Structures are given as C-alpha cells and as structure tokens.
C-alpha cells in the first residue's frame, strides 16, 4: 500500500514505551497464539506482545521511535491476521475493576462461610449431645470473629446499593438483603454475649456468598458480551483518506477525523463521515442511511452521510458537524425526544422488591406485636421478629431473576444475539408487535446477483473473476459468485465504466452497457441494477438487486404465528417495498417514510397499548429504535442505529430475531416460575419463623435449598435452547 496509515490516536505513550491494543480477526486455535506473539516479537523494537484468547485482543508494547503503529498492523497482515486497533472504552475498564472486587468479595465470603459452617455443624451436633456451654460460647465467638470482618468486606456491594436506594427514597432488593444480614449479625452477637443456644452467623455469611455468586455471574456475562461488541465495533471501524496540509493523502482511522478535514472518497468506498462534497460527482447509494435503494446523484455542495456507498466517481468532501436542516440534525433531534420520552422501564426484580420489602417488614413487625400480645417477653418477641426477617431474606428471590438472565443471555450469545441492555430480555418477552425496516434488515445489506442460474457456469465464473479486479459495488456483488478468488492478470479498470482483460487471448469486458458495446440492452425494473459482460462474442447481463435474508420468509411466518403483529416500515419507495411485503405475506406495510413518520407510527401503536419490537439498521431507523419498547439491529447497521438498539444480531440470516423472541419468552416464564418458587418457600418457612421454631440449622437448610432450586430451574433454559438451534 503506497499510502501510510496514521494510527497515532490509538497509541498510548509512557516514557519511551508505546502501547496499543488491537482486536484480532480469525484467532481460533492454539497455534494462532504462538504465531502472532512470536511473529510480532521478531519485529525490531517490540518489547512485548500478548494475545488474550478469551476476548481476542492483542496488547503490544514497543520502544517508540524504532517502529510505528502501522508496522505492527502490517506485520500481523503478513502473518495472516486482520487486526484493528481500538481504544478500550472507559466503561469496560471500570467493569473489569468491579468484576475483580466482586470476585474478591466472593472469595472472602466463601472462606468465611466454609469456616463458620465447620464451627456451626459442631455446635448443632453438640446441642443434641453433651456440649459444655463454655465450648459453645467459644465456638460462637470464633464464628463472630470470622463473620464480622468478612461481612463488612463482602457485604459492601449490597450495603452501598441499598444505601443509594434509601437516599433516593426508593426500594430495591438490596434493602431487605442488607437489613437481614445486619440484623442477623447483630442479634447473633447479642445472643453470643448472653450465652444463648442459637447464633445465625452462618446464615448471614452464607446468604452473602450465594448472592455474590449470582451477582458475579451476571456481571461476567455482561462483560463478555460487551467485549465481543467492542471487538465488532473495532472490526467495523473504517479508515478515511484525508488530505494533509501539504495536499498529500494519508490514511487515518475514522475516530481521528475532525470537522473541517478534507477527505477523498473513491468509488466502492463508504463515506467515512458526514460532510459536504467539495468537488467531483458520483452516484451515492444511501440504503444504509435512508433505506432508499436507488442511488442518488451528488455534485459539489451536496450533503453526504456516514455509511453511504460511493458508486461511480471519486469525491472530495469536507467533514462538517451536523448543520441545521440536514438529515443528521433531524435524526439527532428526534433521538433526543425519543430517548427522553421512553418511559423508564421498571424491571421485574425491582417490581418484586417493591412488593416484597414492605410485606416482609410488616410481617416482622406484626410478629413482634403478636408475641408481645400473646404474653411473650420482649427479648423473645424481638428474637422471633428478627428470625422472620432472616428467614425471609430474599436469597432465592434475589437469585430468581439474575440467574435466568445469565443463562438466557448465554443462550442468545451462542445463537448470535448480543444484548446491549440489561433488561432487554424482559422487554423482548413482552413485545406483541414487530416492526421491520426493509433495506438491510429484511434484505441483505449487500446486493446480490439475481439471475445466476440463467448463465453457463463457465461464463459466470469468467465474469465473476473479472469482477474481482473492480471496486465498483455492482462488480463486487458479482465477484461474490467467483469460486476461484484470483483475479485475471493484466485486468485494467476504467473508472466509471468497467474493467477489461485478456482471457485466453480474447478480450473480455465487464461494466456499463455502453462500455461493453451493448447500448441496445433492454431496460430492467426500477430497483434492479445491471452489469454487462462480453467475452468471445457472448454477452451476459447480470441483474443485481437487494435480496431477502435467507430464511426470512419462514422466520416472519413463525413470528407471526407466535402472536406477533408484523409490520414493515421502510424509507424506500412504496414500489420497492411492495414485492417484499408480498413475499413475506405481511399486510401492514408502508414505504417512503421519514424518520419522524416511523416514530409517529410507533407512537400510535403505543397509544393502543401495544409493545413494539423494532428491528432496523439505518441511520433513519435510529430514532424509531430508541422510541420502541425494545429494539434489535443487524451487525451491518449504521453506527448510530447500533448504539440505540437493545440487542444486535450477527450473520446474514434473520433467524436470530426469532430465537431472541423465543428465548426471551421462555426466560420470562422461568423468571416467573422462580418468583413463585421463592413465594412458596416463604409460605412454608415464614409460619415456622412466626411460631418461633426457626433454628440456625433450619435457616441454613432453607436458604441453600431454595437458592439451589431456583438456580437449577434457570438452567432449564439451556436444555431447551439447544434443541431449538438447528
């Protein structure tokens, strides 16, 4: 490559050392680690290269000045790996710190739970045989010695969150948890000091241990999906050709672009930033921006948007910020409104906590009063009331939802769906109306040759191999059909017209009808583009158009059958939407919609009480994605759409949408089952506690029993989703 790639934005300097992180594509085996690491260490100046196989990231350190960042990327390219530098997001490193502190808390709670249980089992068996009171007290004090510091350390995540909730006068599940733990510890300490038989140190610490397990798993799942999403973003990140001060072209990463930069956009490249054309003219395919499949003519002064595909001529453009009245400005304005209007969704667990906490605390208070009225001593009444609080401490309840979420997110991850929002599963399960965007969502983002079957295989292969030498989008669609991925030697591209080459001595041409001497070619339908190939007297006209994602028809059918009301809302012309709607048997469809129109449709549906799942990919879909109850985007979507979607799906098939809905519904029913299990557990345990029969042994058995039960129940989602995947 003649141009130099400027990657300085990604390099972190500390003294003489430079550090860069890269997301690496195609790492799949043990050999890759060694190949990449030893390959890079052979470069002069490289101090260290370490590949993290878990998140497919490579950290490279080198002595600044000896080589530069692009040499590292080039070296990886030579070894056979595409690597994309990226800047780790702050949120990601913060999450890594949280994960570490959660794991430490988990270790401390685990250590304390095991050692206290060792002492507790001795006390329990001693209580039914002949343990001396001194020994029992000694064991209780020893338990306190372990439990108090351990709970003070390991309970912090819960205490902090509970305190935050109380300060904002809200209730979350951590409030009853913290209260239960603190009361259990306080009462046990008092009982120990007064030489009583029962102390609940084991229950308090075991409770923390179970809850931390759930919390850590939830956190780990979120981190894993975020890391994959970060890598995908880095792989998508494109480079721009920028004119530097001296008028020379430098390749820079899109992240480094600033308003005012002058860029060159060649045919076949995507526009890297929003801006206006300074010189040149071309046809621009804005299907990723507006959904319109017909190319738009642009000349000097016309606005161009990120993600549009340049078809025919080279353009020089200037990067601008969103000016008033442009499409970007309108979309951003709508996004602000849609995001603020989105009613803050109350999670199932928070709703449960709102019901649960007052109920539990009232029951405890009533127990205290009841015992007093029935003639119990104040000491006994308080002890029994606290026992109620301990036994109701929502261990199973707090695990009921996160465990299902972790298992469901894992199942979705394996079927190619990455969740952006923590509560996406719950909202997905509630959706009853499904709105699809057409271009890029129901259809494939790249156009395909439609009439492949009409040509002799040999002719098709020649045409496709010749197409490999062209950067024109239509030629690239044809090139996908090539079985041999080597271009013909000596192929010449004539910009804006086509390519020609000598194949076995006779000339072959591929390009516009004019270029191939086929001006008499018949006109095709409006949404079909054509490319002509001539060779040895034979002529072929390839019809190229956006094709439906494979399996789209079956997926839409199944979704409709599962009770979803399917709509298509497209920014493309009605004439282009109709055949798609007919093929998918969707009766509710509209074409030619502006971003504001899409929101209007969603709002009307919302007023009717519908919960809308929006699936879209374009810049014009972003406000609708934010306005809908829940939203999904294919990974090929525009950046702004990806950031506003609750879930992103990978691959070329539409299947993940179906799987996401099915898994979410199953997850929701399991969550409800788990909540019921927790309720049943309480219905059995609370009367025992009110009657004053709870011993530490019963508390420990009930708590671990119910926690294990809900966790096992959550795992059932896994068994089902394995069967689902074909």
């Amino acid at each position, binding site marked *: 490559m003649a141009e130099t790639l400027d990657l300085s934005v990604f390099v972190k300097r500390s003294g003489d050392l430079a550090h860069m992180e890269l997301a690496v594509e195609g790492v799949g085996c043990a050999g890759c680690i060694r190949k990449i690491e030893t390959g890079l260490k052979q470069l002069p100046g490289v101090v260290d290269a370490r590949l993290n196989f*878990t*998140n497919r990231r490579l950290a490279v350190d080198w002595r600044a000045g000896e080589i530069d960042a692009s040499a590292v990327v080039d070296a990886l390219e030579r070894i056979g790996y595409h690597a994309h530098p990226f800047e780790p997001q702050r949120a990601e490193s913060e999450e890594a710190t949280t994960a570490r502190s959660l794991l430490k808390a988990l270790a401390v709670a685990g250590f304390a739970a095991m050692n206290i249980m060792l002492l507790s089992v001795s006390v329990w068996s001693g209580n039914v045989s002949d343990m001396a009171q001194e020994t029992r007290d000694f064991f209780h004090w020893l338990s306190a010695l372990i439990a108090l510091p351990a709970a003070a350390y390991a309970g912090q995540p819960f205490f902090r969150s509970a305190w935050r909730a109380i300060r904002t006068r809200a209730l979350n599940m951590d409030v009853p948890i913290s209260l239960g733990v603190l009361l259990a510890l306080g009462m046990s300490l008092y009982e120990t000091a007064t030489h009583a038989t029962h102390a609940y140190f084991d229950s308090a610490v075991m409770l923390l241990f179970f809850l931390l397990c759930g919390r850590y798993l939830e956190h780990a799942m979120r981190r894993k999906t975020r890391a994959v999403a970060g890598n995908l973003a880095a792989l998508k990140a494109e480079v721009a050709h920028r004119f530097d001060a001296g008028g020379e072209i430098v390749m820079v990463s899109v992240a480094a672009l600033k308003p005012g930069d002058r860029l060159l956009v060649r045919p076949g490249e995507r526009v890297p930033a929003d801006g206006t054309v300074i010189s040149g003219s071309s046809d621009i395919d804005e299907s990723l921006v507006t959904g319109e499949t017909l190319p738009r003519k642009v000349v000097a002064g016309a606005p161009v948007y990120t993600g549009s595909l340049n078809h025919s001529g080279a353009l020089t453009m200037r990067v601008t910020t969103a000016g008033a009245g442009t499409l970007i400005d309108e979309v951003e304005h709508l996004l602000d409104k849609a995001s603020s209007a989105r009613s803050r969704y109350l999670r199932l667990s928070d709703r449960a906590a709102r019901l649960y906490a007052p109920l539990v605390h009232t029951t405890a208070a009533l127990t205290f009063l009841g015992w007093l009225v029935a003639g119990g001593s104040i000491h006994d009444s308080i002890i029994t009331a606290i026992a109620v609080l301990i036994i109701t401490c929502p261990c199973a309840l707090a695990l009921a939802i996160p465990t299902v979420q972790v298992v469901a997110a894992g199942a979705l991850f394996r079927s190619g769906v990455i969740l952006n929002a923590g509560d996406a599963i719950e909202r997905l399960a509630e959706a009853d109306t499904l709105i699809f965007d057409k271009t890029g969502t129901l259809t494939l983002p790249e156009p395909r040759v439609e009439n492949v079957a009409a040509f002799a295989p040999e002719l098709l292969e020649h045409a496709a191999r010749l197409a490999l030498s062209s950067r024109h989008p239509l030629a690239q669609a044809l090139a996908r059909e090539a079985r041999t991925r080597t271009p013909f030697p000596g192929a010449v591209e004539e910009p804006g017209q086509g390519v020609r080459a000598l194949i076995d001595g006779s000339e072959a041409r591929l390009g516009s009808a004019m270029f191939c001497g086929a001006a008499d070619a018949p006109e095709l339908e409006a949404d079909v583009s054509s490319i002509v190939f001539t060779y040895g007297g034979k002529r072929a006209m390839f019809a190229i158009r956006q094709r439906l994602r494979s399996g789209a028809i079956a997926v839409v059918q199944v979704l409709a059958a599962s009770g979803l009301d399917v709509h298509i809302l497209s920014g493309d012309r009605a004439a282009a939407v109709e055949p798609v709607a007919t093929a998918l048997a969707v009766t509710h469809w509209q074409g030619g919609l502006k971003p504001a129109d899409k929101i209007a449709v969603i709002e009307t549906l919302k007023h009717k009480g519908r919960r809308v799942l929006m699936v879209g990919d374009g810049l014009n879909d972003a406000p609708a994605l934010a306005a809908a109850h829940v939203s999904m985007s294919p990974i090929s979507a525009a950046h702004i759409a990806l950031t506003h979607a609750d879930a992103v799906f990978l691959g070329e098939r539409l299947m993940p949408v179906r799987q996401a809905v099915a898994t979410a519904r199953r997850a929701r029913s399991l969550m409800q089952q788990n909540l019921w299990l927790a309720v049943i557990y309480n219905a059995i345990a609370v009367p025992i506690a009110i009657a004053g029969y709870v011993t530490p042994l019963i508390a420990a058995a009930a708590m671990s029993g119910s926690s294990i039960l809900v966790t096992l129940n959550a795992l059932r989602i896994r068994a089902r989703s394995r069967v689902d995947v074909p």
Partner: protein
Amino acid sequence: MSVLVYLVPMALLLGLTGLAAFLWSLSSGQYDDVEGAALRILDNDDVEAQAP
C-alpha cells in the same frame, strides 16, 4: 477438648492460606485469559528448545 487448642487455629490457618492463594492468583492476572491458558499449555516451544 484440649485438642481444640491446635485444631481450631490450624483450620483457620488452612482456610486463610487458601484465601490468600486465591487473592494472589487473582491479582497476578491469572483469570484474565482463562481460555488462552488452556491452549498455551499445548504449545511445545519450551520442550523443543530443550531438545538437542
């Protein structure tokens, strides 16, 4: 019950040793790349380097 005099401290010491070992392994980054560790063990570089 005099056996408790050394049994209890020993139990605590063993538990604390385990905890300390875990915290050390955590802070030395041994859980940062668990999948990679499983594959790096298959690398024969060290063995090949020693072979004559």
